[in-house]
């Protein structure tokens, strides 16, 4: 059985994995990081988005073995050690960017990848970037607002729908 060695949320990790083990299963089952969700398991919904070397990827569509030598970031690593929410997490709370919350970890991880590349995205850019993240509750509007707010822009400018 191959071994995969990587850094997850700043902690070095070394695990034996089967070839078929998906990154999301390693995170959830072996590391108990169950904040990364599996919605569709077919790379449509984006609930499983994590960062691998800083890039957003769908953890249900990458083998754990391929994460060898990488740095992986999950939702669990977003808040500070004392529980203080990240800027984006706080904005989701402030702007009611979630209802059932199932898609939220993937939304937050996608949003943070977007803001890293594009610190002041337009509403259209946000909506385009979230194309691979599906939410069945909110209608996306408050998610977009939260990301606008997290980027330090004026939320009032977001078009009402």
């Amino acid at each position, binding site marked *: 059985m191959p071994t995969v060695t990587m850094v997850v949320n700043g902690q070095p990790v070394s695990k034996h994995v089967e070839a078929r083990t998906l990154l999301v299963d390693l995170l959830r089952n072996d590391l108990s990081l169950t904040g990364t969700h599996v919605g569709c398991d077919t*790379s449509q919904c984006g609930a499983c988005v994590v960062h691998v070397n800083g890039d957003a990827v769908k953890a249900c569509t990458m083998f754990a073995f391929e994460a060898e030598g990488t740095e992986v970031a999950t939702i669990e690593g977003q808040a500070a050690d004392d529980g203080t929410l990240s800027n984006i997490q706080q904005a989701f709370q402030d702007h009611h960017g979630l209802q059932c919350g199932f898609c939220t970890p993937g939304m937050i991880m996608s949003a943070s990848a977007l803001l890293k590349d594009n610190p002041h995205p337009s509403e259209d850019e946000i909506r385009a970037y979230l194309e691979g993240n599906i939410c069945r509750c909110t209608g996306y509007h408050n998610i977009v607002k939260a990301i606008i707010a997290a980027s330090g822009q004026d939320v009032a400018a977001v078009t009402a729908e």
Partner: protein
Amino acid sequence: MYDFDIERPSTIADAVLALQNEDTQALSGGQTLIPTLKARLAMPETLISLTGIPEMQGICTNDTGQLCIGGGTTHASVARGAIQYPALAQMAGHIGDPAVRNRGTIGGSLANNDPAACYPAAVLGSGATIVTNTREIAADDYFLGMFETALEEGEIITEVRFPLPQRANYQKFQQPASRFALVGVFVAKYADGVRVAVTGASEEGVFRWTDAELALDTNFSATALSELMVAADGLLEDIHGSPEYRANLIKVMTQRAVGAA
């Protein structure tokens, strides 16, 4: 998922060697192959991952001015890095979604040759050259039909070389659920002629619309296409669109691409 083995060689030579073993399958970004394995539509015994091969990644320009892209280069890297070929970068930046673009690769897309994938249109529309571990294949000789290519068993796409056009554009009419092209048209104008490649529409996969190329050779404008129409015969039919609808979309997307080029 069923049980299989995986190897991750770090050189092209080692990957080629590994792929000579029986019942192996090359794995690139896996954005199509992993869902395929989950559904057991393919069940190879051993996957040979090509994601750990540095010599297959990156973008550069060669001595003849062609843009060379390593077979293992992701869509996101092409979207960011193909600055000499904006139409190609724009095309790559609209494949799937951001997370898919961070994994999916040009070589993987071309080896798979999905009839609705974007890359085949860009490669055929540019008259690009597909470089493998054994040879160079002209785009016109590479795409043989739906999911069929000129690649031999165990052959790996190591690089794709694009001649840079004077003007080019890609227009995709997106199937909103899958984000594949319902119809996608890549138009590129070169000194020696215009090329028009259509994806998403034909039962035979990507194809060149040669009537449009001839019309655009003499008059590179959307109006040059006003009297033309692709025959609906042989076009795909599904719940998203009839052959006639796709035929119309081909014309509309081609006109838009010419206008935006």
